[in-house]
């Protein structure tokens, strides 16, 4: 058993005692009812389960939750798909996903949203040349599987958010 305390979408949770074998995915979905994060494969292949981990130094990265013990998230600050909209207002990327019709069944969408958001924040800190943009987006999103859409519109949505504000993201 481990005691788990963490921050999710700006709100503190815990201390809760959790079994060592409890995955973070089960903790989010079963203990907290935050079912926006999905369970896809349970084998670290699809990243439908990905959440954003925010480091104290201001950098962020996505992490799977299906193969990581909840105990490993102790003390961390994370964002899930439920945390992107602020006061009912969808984020820029969420709106782009809708406008581009980027998702169909929606099962992979939370993962793509988190990954896209982390990519935008990473580019804000370290911009890339326009010529490298498609490759950068491709590498960032390649960990995520989608069976419905063929990926095209996810990539276009992220690309168009970046191209709408090029000085912020591109050299």
């Amino acid at each position: 058993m481990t005691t788990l305390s963490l921050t999710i979408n700006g709100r503190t949770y815990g201390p809760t005692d959790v079994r060592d074998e409890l995955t973070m995915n089960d903790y989010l979905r079963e203990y907290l009812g935050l079912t926006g994060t999905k369970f896809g494969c349970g084998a670290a292949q699809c990243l439908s389960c990905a959440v954003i981990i925010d480091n104290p130094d201001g950098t962020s990265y996505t992490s799977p939750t299906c193969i990581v013990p909840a105990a490993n998230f102790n003390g961390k600050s994370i964002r899930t798909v439920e945390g992107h909209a602020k006061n009912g207002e969808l984020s820029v990327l969420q709106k782009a996903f809708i406008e581009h019709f980027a998702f169909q069944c929606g099962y992979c969408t939370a993962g793509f949203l988190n990954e896209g958001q982390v990519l935008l924040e990473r580019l804000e800190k370290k911009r890339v040349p326009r010529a490298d943009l498609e490759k950068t987006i491709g590498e960032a999103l390649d960990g995520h599987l989608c069976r419905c859409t063929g990926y095209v519109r996810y990539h276009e949505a992220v690309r168009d958010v970046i191209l709408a504000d090029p000085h912020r993201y591109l050299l």
Partner: protein
Amino acid sequence: MGVGYTFLEKLPLYEDGPGNGKWNLGQYVVARGSDLPLRDLEIEVLPAVDANERPKGIAEVTGIPVIAALVNAIFDATGHRFRALPVTQDTIKGVLK
């Protein structure tokens, strides 16, 4: 997902495959963004046959013409007709000699 069906999704029968109870997406490989020509897609919508023709659903249409087109392209490139899927890199190498 036609690309996955044509090139990647190998599903052996019985114990060699998911019948052994241990398969997941690591063994059943589906297409990722990097497997697809995401920026080189052209979509051509053909005009309706009849002005009064109503729209119809086409559902998972990728399972049909995409595969045929890819296997025809392989024939065009290699002269070999494949009649079993998936056509992996190894199978193509095998007929290139």
